[in-house]
């Protein structure tokens, strides 16, 4: 069995475990990325705790998580249920809503930045020319995080809908028909048949959403770089800035440890739910 697992195990050790251990170790050193690391104890964590930007970045990660646990999930669940009921439209609609997922993140980010939100070249500019007074949300520190989240939701929710639809299609048709014969409408069917039927998939996607929300980087970095005025800063952009602009790899590693901590918590919850499910089924 071990021999069978060896290739995957080796890859995991080399490209996941070793960098993870090195990153964790780096969090306890002052290191500029090129010179000799100097032992710093908990100084990086203390400095981070004293930095208000860290706390606003962490708060933004929580806001991001809350947004992604609700908005795209609700949109995707409703769309998946609707597509389950309308098999004829399924292929066309799935193709359309899945399309944003296959467009490169950098392209999506630039499209929204230049063609939607830009007050010079985007839809916002057009609306302003036609009498609507709308400002670029990416330029407002109080709205920039939500604007980037909107871009990511556009990119993400279709994928989620396809996953949920695939899970719903595993539910017994008899069960759905029986509910309908009993007079269940769309919402009753959704609440009492479809949602319980896809609970394992839904739980997995919610847990993954929490993990990914604490790792979010690319959309924010491409569209706002965490600004303006740190308005859309999250832990990943905070870590990147420290590592590559400020030459403070130790501080960046400490931020990465905090990101991982939330990922670990989410993973632990998922494992606990699995164990509980196993115990109940046996």
């Amino acid at each position, binding site marked *: 069995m071990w021999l069978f697992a060896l290739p995957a195990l080796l890859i995991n050790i080399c490209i996941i475990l070793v960098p993870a251990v090195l990153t964790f170790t780096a969090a306890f050193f002052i290191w*500029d*990325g*090129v*010179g*000799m690391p100097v032992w710093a104890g908990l100084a990086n964590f203390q400095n981070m705790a004293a930095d208000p930007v860290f706390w606003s970045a962490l708060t933004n990660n929580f806001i991001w998580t809350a947004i992604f646990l609700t908005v795209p999930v609700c949109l995707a669940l409703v769309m998946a249920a609707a597509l389950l009921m309308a098999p004829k439209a399924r292929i066309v609609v799935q193709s359309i809503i899945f399309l944003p997922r296959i467009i490169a993140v950098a392209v999506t980010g630039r499209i929204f*930045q230049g063609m939607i*939100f*830009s*007050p*010079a*070249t985007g839809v916002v500019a057009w609306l302003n020319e036609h009498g609507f007074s709308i*400002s*670029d949300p*990416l*330029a407002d*520190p109080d709205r920039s995080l939500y604007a980037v989240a909107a871009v990511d939701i556009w990119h993400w929710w279709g994928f989620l809908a396809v996953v949920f639809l695939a899970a719903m299609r595993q539910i017994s048709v008899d069960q759905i028909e029986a509910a309908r014969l009993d007079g269940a409408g769309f919402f009753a069917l959704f609440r009492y048949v479809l949602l319980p039927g896809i609970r394992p998939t839904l739980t997995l996607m919610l847990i993954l959403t929490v993990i990914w929300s604490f790792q979010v980087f690319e959309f924010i970095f491409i569209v706002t*770089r*965490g*600004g*303006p*005025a*740190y308005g859309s800063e999250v832990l990943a952009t905070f870590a990147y*800035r420290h590592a*590559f*602009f*400020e*030459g*403070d790899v130790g501080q960046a590693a400490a931020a990465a440890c905090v990101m991982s901590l939330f990922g670990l918590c989410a993973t632990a919850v998922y494992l606990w739910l699995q164990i509980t499910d196993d115990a109940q089924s046996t």
Partner: protein
Amino acid sequence: MTMTRRQLVASIPAAALAAGLPRGAYAQDGRKVVTFWFGQANSDGQAALRSDLVEAFNASQDKYLLQLEVKGAAVNNLLKVALVAGNGPDIVQTAGPAYLTAIANAGQVLPLDDFAEKYKWKERFLAPLLNTSVYGGKLYALPRDYESMHLFYNKELFKQNGWKLPTNRKEMEEVADAALAKGIIPFGAGNADWKGVNEWLMTVFFNNVAGPDNVRKALAGELPWTAPPFVEAVELSKAWYNKGYFGKNYFSLTIEQSFLQVVNAKAAMAFSGTWSFGTKSYGMSKPDTVMDVAPTPTLGSAFSGSLVHLACGATLSIAKTSQNAEGAAAVFEFMLTRKFYEAMNRDWPGKWALPVKDLPPEMLSGIGYPLFEKTIANLHEAFSKGQYGFTTWTFWPGATNSYLIEGIEQVWLNKITPDAYLTRMQTLFSQEAKEGKVPPLPPRTA
């Protein structure tokens, strides 16, 4: 000879290993290879690099073969990792002395003193720029160029409105207010694609309000950043931002879009650097009938007249692990030829304005870009005399500079006060000064 399946399978790891080995230091024609990574370059720039540097150097001699790779915006990060791993290029180009400090302090690049002696580089480069790469008495890099912030303005627009080129804060604000009253943006500016635009502006505010002597004192640790001259500088930047001097869309426009506003008479002026000459998409032309450029005027009471700001946009070193240091030095020596200077500055103005001491007028006039030639001639004279301010990207240490860029947005958007901004800057600067991360400071004459 045929291979058995077993032999073929056994050869795969060996082939993979061979493919991963570093390339040999010799080219097929027996010349020693010199590798050079370059960061961002537009299409004109890449063409100039290939023809004026690579092909011209390789044709000029038969001992070395220069191989150039354009790595893109992430080159600084790639370079650091590669140097630590011992796999960097022979020629190490950094984005200026502030980036070089960590690499030189870590001993990842060779001291160039022997080559400097051999090729008389110390006698041929302007001392203020060459000395920004001296650490512990040793020279670790050559400056690739000099740059400065300037006031670019639409001379046609000024003429139409009867505006005169401002020479102090009062006149500048009069022109800006007059422009605003006509619906013209006073200063075209935008940082949507490059947050570094914040530091271009803050270089002007710190130097031209607080004065270059105070800036030098602060960089030398003799005056805190919280001192009144710097508070005045930050407060003025905030006041101008809030008055709309930089337009309503500073955070939404790209550099190119904002500069084009000036060229297209939607904005009157722009604080930008000498690199603007080398970007065709900015809309300037040679000869230019619309745009003109001048050193930035005083914006406070610390000095009168105008000021240029000493900057080195890139440094050139030789990697510690280079197997061909002689070849890399030969490339540097080639860059010092008059033919290269003229060709490179003609094809990519401003990017490779080598800070050589000897810059006769006929050498500049060969470039064929009058506005650029005038600017470089003025810059050369000011730098030679020691009359300059200090740019943030050359003289501020990394973390302090990063905060200067990010934190000023908080000030402009009323998230923190100028005092809080400068206090945080002082804290970071003190720490970095203690760690020896402040780049060397050249002397200044009034």
